[in-house]
């Protein structure tokens, strides 16, 4: 184990899951500190200088969403939440509060590892510095400075809103964006009632960017939550 190993903090009340996360993450080269309660977790966060937080939403002492808010008050640290199935609203709240990604229990280690990788990569790019001017994923290429979008090297014409939507997704590539977050970023705060707007524009984008819009490879839907631009 080297000093540069990423540090992950796990806040989870179930000892079996905690043990599984600790063992599997440790054997894959991560430095893991775990906490049983939200308060203990916040202490660990302050002490350990972590690179990532894995947070269970169902904690005994406090609401997971409050933990996220507390963290977001001082850090842009990537947060992956763990939640029970069919807790859509809970997930939406957590994502809206600033969580980066989520995993639904039960999950496999492969899935977890993939999410951690994306989150860490995303975090490597400093938030305040200018984003890379050309973004590439799969066969999609977006030049943020010249506003040119290409699929398989072919230039695609997008309307202003379609482009704005795409650029928001690109800026948050790999992250889940909730419907509300997209509405706020693309249309502004006065469009909170028009929940169907993002869906319709996302369909338009898919029809322009995806080979088969019904089986998208890049512009993925997170069922009941929002969208994610897949990073290859």
């Amino acid at each position: 184990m080297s000093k540069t190993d990423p540090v992950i903090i796990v806040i989870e009340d179930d000892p079996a899951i905690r043990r599984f996360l600790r063992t599997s993450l440790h054997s894959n080269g991560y430095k893991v500190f775990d906490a049983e309660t939200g308060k203990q977790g916040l202490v660990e966060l302050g002490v350990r200088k972590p690179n990532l937080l894995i947070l269970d939403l169902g904690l005994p002492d406090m609401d997971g969403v409050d933990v996220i808010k507390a963290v977001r008050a001082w850090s842009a640290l990537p947060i992956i939440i763990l939640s029970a199935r069919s807790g859509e609203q809970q997930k939406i709240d957590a994502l809206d509060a600033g969580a980066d990604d989520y995993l639904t229990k039960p999950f496999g280690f492969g899935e977890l590892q993939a999410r951690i990788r994306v989150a860490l990569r995303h975090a490597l790019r400093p938030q305040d510095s200018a984003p890379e001017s050309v973004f590439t994923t799969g066969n999609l290429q977006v030049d943020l400075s010249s506003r040119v979008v290409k699929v398989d090297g072919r230039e695609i014409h997008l309307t202003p809103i379609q482009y704005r939507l795409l650029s928001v997704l690109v800026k948050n590539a790999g992250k889940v964006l909730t419907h509300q977050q997209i509405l706020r970023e693309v249309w502004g705060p006065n469009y909170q009632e028009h929940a169907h707007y993002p869906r319709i524009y996302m369909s338009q984008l898919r029809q322009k960017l995806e080979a088969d819009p019904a089986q998208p490879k890049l512009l993925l839907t997170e069922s009941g939550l929002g969208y994610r631009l897949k990073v290859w």
Partner: protein
Amino acid sequence: MQDIRPDPDALLARVERDQAKARRGRLKIFFGAAAGVGKTFAMLLAARERRADNLDVVVGIVETHGRKETQALLAGLETLPLRRIDYKGTVLHEFDLDAALKRRPAIMLVDELAHSNAPGSRHPKRWQDIHELLEAGIDVYTALNVQHLESLNDDIGQISGIRVWETIPDTVFEDADEVELVDLPPDELLNRLKEGKVYLPQQAQEAINHFFRKGNLIALRELALRQTASRVDAEMLDYREDHAIREVWQVSERILVCIGPNPLAERLVRAGKRLATSLRAEWIVAYVETPQLQRLPAEKRDGVLRILRLAEQLGAETVTLSSPDMSEALIRFSRQRNIGKIVIGKPSRRGWRRWLFGSVVDTLVSRAHNINLYLLGSPQTRERGAAAPELALFGKSPLPGLRQRIPAKTKRRYLGYLSAFAVTGLVTAAGYLLLGRLEPANLVMVYLLGVIFVASRFGRGPSVLASVLGVGCFDLLFVQPYYSFSVADSQYLITLSAMLAVGIVVSNLTANVRSQAKVAAHRERRAAALYSMSRELGSSQTETDVVRVAVKHLYAEFSSRNVILFPNANGRMAFPAGKAIAESLLGADLSVAQWVFDHNEIAGQGTDTLPGASAVYFPIHGDDQVLGVLALLPVNLRRVFLPEQQKLLETFLRQIGQAIGRIRFSERARSTQMQMEAERLRNSLLSAISHDLRTPLATIIGSASTIAHNPQKLAPQDIVELGQGIVDEAERMANLVNNILDMAKLEAGVLELNKQWYPLEEIVGTALNQLQAQLAGRPVTVKLPPGIPLVLVDSVMIEQVLINLLENAVRYTPAGSALEISAEFGDSSVEIAVADRGPGIPRGQEERLFEKFYQGRQETAQSGGGLGLAICRAIVEIHGGAISARNRPEGGAVFAFKLPLDQPPPEVEPEE
């Protein structure tokens, strides 16, 4: 051998009566001839004895009237505080019924049985309070003077010249469990009176002095003794009946008392009561409403209503017969009911009028051979003064609160009289024009035609007017000397008088026919109303429907807003949860309804209980219990309390009660069936879970323990294999658990649909994305309509439907075979289909597939516990859609579900 065992039915009835009595409290009446004989004293003595037996005796109310001996007896007995009632500025003290019911002693003393409560009390009369105490199982001691007995009231009034207004129904006295006669010879009573030991209210001093004459006292004492004796007699008869002493057993006789709208009616009823009591016979009081009587003013008809109510209180059955011929109706009714005796008033017509028009009595005498007639004289002939108060009594409002009157149809009446003038004028004008060309005799015919026209259209009054006017005009214009009422030819006198007579007779006949037709139409309408309600009730499937139908029909028939109240789970009356309809009564008094529900008796306006309430409350019975309460706000009490209306209402209520009972019964049956179904499901669930959970668990535990116990002995590829096995089996279990939880949530109905507008494509895409692994290697085609069709759904759930359908297809079709997803938009729905190229669905299983725990093939390698399709159906159905399965003609199966499109999709602002 003669069978002298007691009649089992009679015995059973007796046992039931005794049982009812055993549950009730016992009523003991201390009965005396007049005030001052010492009833209260005797009552208190008895109470003290009970107290000495350690019984819980409480004094509810006792009037000592300041007598020292009596007051001394009160000492040491618990006394209930009286209730204060502020009535128009004065404070009245009354017996506190609610406190008494709450205190619940073994014996309660409530003096003065005949007392009338202050306005605003629950019951107008104290005997009703006592009735409630008895119903609650409390024994009651009370005191009563003979003059307060309803049936003797009239006689005593005649003997003493003083009428008391506070009376009690004889049934209260008769149903008392014990009557103790408190007797004092008149001389002693007079002595006590002189010594000032008898309490006399100041204001009626003179009348009281008049009352306490020795003759009066002797008569009263005799009445009291006789009344007590007849009670003893009745007890003796009961005893004999019990012990099968048949000799005195009489064939049950029926007495018919016929009353009319006259002051004699009350006396007839009382006489009937006495006769019925002495003969131990059933008695019926009948009122025949002839067309003439229908024309009586409302006050008189209310008088009849009051008498009928009195008769009911005295224990009679009452009927109203509707017929043009009084004697005919009475004879027919008597035959029907096997009546042996008729009590009727003496004929009022005398002399030639009786000879000419006949009388009911005469017809009865000549036609009813096997019926004994009892005639009662009219009081007017004896003493004019006595009739006056009776008349006043007759005119008294029969029901508390019955003061509203229907506004007479004066407009129509004026129209009738105007038309009498008009028709006569027309006929006269026509006759004047034809003068000379028409014989006067024929002119008379034309006038009569006019009279008939008026009679048929406007009834009796206008047509009589037309007759008189006709005769006048005819005389004035067509009989010499013209323009004068004098008649030159005396022949015309006959013409004129015959014309008048014929005109009036025709008027009467036509009017009678009219009113008959009206009565018939009324009856027909009523029968039709009943029929249509029972038909609608019969086709009602839910309690809400029944209530709605009932409220509507009650409103139509009684033109009264009404509401049907049911108790909640705690047995407390509650307002209906559903929406009120136009005919609903709002703001019923729940406390009154509760009383009615608890006591199974009618209450509210126009009744003896809580008459201050604005509505009338009726219990609604099922087969064996009170189901609910009808609150009816009558526009007119007569429409509810007239005997025939009351019977109609009872019929309505019975029908409603039966309908509710029927629905409750079928609901119970249905819920039993549902329980059985749930039980069956639980069993299949248990077997599914035990099998489908245990199998993967066996693999997981086995593999995991192998790794845990022998890590060093295992080759790395063995560990990988075992680990993969654990992952696969655990995922299978997770899938099953998810399905079970989904199904449970769907069935519990706790799921709230989060419906939003989604592009169909997105839902399909998400489902396909989640199944990437399972669908690997299969060609999947998606055929959606062009554009971005939106559907209003809960996307997570509809995705689940697609996922389940696709998983199902993967499970039951050969690996690598093609799948197709398509959607078609109709006018009001969209159909989404998942088609495969597999073996298809076994014939006849298309429906069963969607049942819980049904598995198409008995293999469990990938099973989801047989819940996948059941979940699909549940989800589609809560979206208001339908799901079905069929085989494709070219091979393979199609699972398709339709979702309704009942709202236009939202617009998107176009981009400029």
